[in-house]
């Protein structure tokens, strides 16, 4: 287990997540792509903390902030999805091609 090996896994996760976020039509699936990219970011932060930063406590703090951001992103995202569905009865990105209020 080396740092480059961990970062290659991170690269794969971010690549797959980017594909999902760009290709999915459904809002909730799009958010799963974002979550998968955040998953990779989390792993990159833990790997760099463990191999290159000598285990300083601030590195763990950064990971905790990433975890909080993941949870907040999902909460706000689902609230927006519910609000959009209530307003337009739309759950895919194609249904929101025109930005009418």
């Amino acid at each position, binding site marked *: 287990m080396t740092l480059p090996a961990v970062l290659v896994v991170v690269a794969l996760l971010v690549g797959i997540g980017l594909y*999902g976020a760009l290709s999915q039509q459904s809002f*909730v699936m799009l958010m799963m792509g974002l979550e998968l990219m955040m*998953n990779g970011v989390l792993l990159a932060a*833990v790997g760099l*903390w463990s191999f290159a930063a000598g285990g300083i406590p601030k590195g763990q703090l950064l990971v905790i902030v990433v975890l909080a951001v993941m949870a907040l992103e999902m909460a706000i995202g689902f609230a927006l999805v519910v609000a959009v569905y209530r307003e337009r009865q739309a759950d895919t990105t194609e249904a929101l091609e025109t930005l009418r209020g």
Partner: protein
Amino acid sequence: MTAVDVFFYLLSAIAVVAGWRVFRTDSMVRASFFLLTSFLTVGGIALLLAAPYLGAAVLFMMAVEMMVMALFMVMFMMNPAGLNPMNMVHQSRFAIGAGVVAGVSLAVLALVVRFPRHPVEPSADLISRLGHELLGDSMLIFESAGVAIVATMVCTVVLSSASGRYGNATSGSRPPGLEPGGEPAGRRPDSDDDADGGDDE
């Protein structure tokens, strides 16, 4: 190759394959459980990387978060029960290209860049040091995260509440048509007889 290496490669393979299956399954609920698998294996890798607190936090947090995700998946499911093959992608070629470019370039960077070598010593009291950091020098950052969570809770309630300060949230809304510019397909709250709504939702 030590046992830790074997576990690491096993967990990494599961994480990547589960992440890929998220977008290749026919049911959105199954997709959320694949994402949960990916998160759990990343939590396991964090445990292997001498981060016991963070690994356990990821495991517990993601288990709950993905359960909530699965509930929303049921609400917005495009293909109930996953009985039909599901094709719900757009700009597929562009997305594949962007994903491949991002993944390959990041992997090349990971293999080419020389990172500093300063590994964590496993005998150090890492969790205790994290606790002192959280409630010591970095307390402001930690508390800011808490305030951000409170703000998010307020935002979520405001965004998802049906009625707001200026009346019903659905006032003036218009569902999209079946084809672009077509007749609205679905309930139009403005044309309802009872302005209060609450009949078919």
